[in-house]
């Protein structure tokens, strides 16, 4: 129990962010036409690519002689970037079509 309390106290801000973000996510999504479900999922997919920041930090803090960390970190950076770049580009391509048909 003490472990959890002290953890909460140390990460109070983070805990607030988590709770507020949960509600925010629910609020933001609740009124979406079903047509947009796929692009929205794809967009959300790109946003969780924010994990790339963790990968960069891991990579950047790895000791130059710690090959395991270097290799895994490197892999993580590549995968994370694919997630971010691919995610946003795919979403944009989907939405491009939605737009083009409206202007026609």
């Amino acid at each position, binding site marked *: 129990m003490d472990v959890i309390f002290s953890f909460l106290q140390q990460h109070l801000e983070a805990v607030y962010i988590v709770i507020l973000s949960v509600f925010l996510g*629910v609020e933001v999504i609740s009124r979406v036409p079903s047509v947009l479900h796929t692009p929205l999922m794809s967009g959300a997919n790109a946003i969780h690519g924010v994990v790339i920041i*963790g990968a960069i930090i891991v990579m950047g803090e790895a000791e130059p002689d710690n090959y395991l960390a270097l290799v895994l970190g490197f892999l993580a950076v590549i995968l994370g970037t*694919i997630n971010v770049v691919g995610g946003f580009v795919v979403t944009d391509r989907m939405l*491009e079509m939605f737009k083009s048909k409206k202007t026609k």
Partner: protein
Amino acid sequence: MLSLIYLIGSVTFIVGLKMLSNPATARKGNAIAAGGMTLAILGTIFLYKHHGQGLHNYGWIVAGLFIGGVIGLVSARRVKMTAMPEMVSLFNGMGGACAALISVVEFEYMTEVIFTGAPVRMQLVIILAGMVIGSVSFAGSVIAWGKLNGSIKDISFKGQHIFNLIVLAVILLLAVVVTITLPAATVILFVVILLLSLLYGVCFVLPIGGADMPVVISLLNSFTGVAAACGGFLYNNPVMLTGGILVGSAGTILTILMCKAMNRSLKNVLIGSFGGPKVAGTSKEQGAYKEISLSDTAVIMAYAQKVMIVPGYGLAVAQAQHACHELENLLEARGVEVKYAIHPVAGRMPGHMNVLLAEADVPYEKLLEMEQANGQFNTTDVVLVLGANDVVNPAAKNDPASPIYGMPILEVENARSVIVNKRSMKPGYAGIENDLFFQPKTSMLFGDAKHVLQQLVAEIVNSL
């Protein structure tokens, strides 16, 4: 400075997501979120400091960003519109793998310096959570990808759900053991948890039917979000926290919304009581169906006043959207009114049909949503059902015993006549018989959707 950048990043994610939920602003929203992401990444590279120390290994980081960027860009640009769902699933898996790898490296650091004490124990819990969720998401996404592109078939064996539960229980148990025996936390145990998580991801998705993949991908999407948020806790990084949790909660809601559109509960999808042979018990006396020839279909459609096309997964599989648009143009030129009736869950993903038809330049005004379409069927002469099945199954309205009872459907039986194009009489993904096919006003036109449409076009051009 960096916290300001992270704040801006978080705000762009929220604004972006909000704008994505409105058709008019969606594209701009995506661009805003992408901009925020770029800012956050650049900020991390140049400004991140831990205990006053900046990052090193810049060469590796830049190389990784470059390689990943090129792969992501090329694959996202090249992928066909019809293969979009698979691609999203694969990208999601990459994110999950990334989160899992971060946890592995962090665990490695932890074993190097043996800490004791409270905060570290909680840190280990977060590392484990990130790794388990990340690798489940990775393995699951890869399977979902394989299933959507058809390289992996549905595999289920008796007691699979119990097996899955046991795997999950073992993962949790081992995680608890590792946490409690912290200083002695062995690498082997950690690796076992990693492997079990991957196994769980595979077993979790394998038995779920292809039609339910969008729901699963959406769920795995929110998993990855949570895994990313674990990283946020680890580094006390607010932008990872907001981004991750936002996607986690939004993804969960989206998953539930998708299930609702199909009138099924999440539990139902995951346990997959759908699609087994057991539901076939609800089928009654079916009677006979009648077939119709291509030339008859061509005549009926060419001389109709109003034709409604109901696209389904068959259209997507056959890549028949262009042929479909061609037929529509031809009929319109002859003065036939052609509309499309889009069921929200037709195809493999909500909105799948809209994207597909948009690719073939079908005008937006021709696509009717379900409620609109249902109001127009009684003035429609011919309904052409292209590879859709469950979304037009009247059992959803009439048969309380049916597994899809209560799901809103397109009421095509109100039209004067219905022509159903399917490859065979095999039931659809839900594995249930469709009474519609046996009704007197329904005729069956067997064949691959694209092939049939092309022949119809040729028939109308040449002989009418």
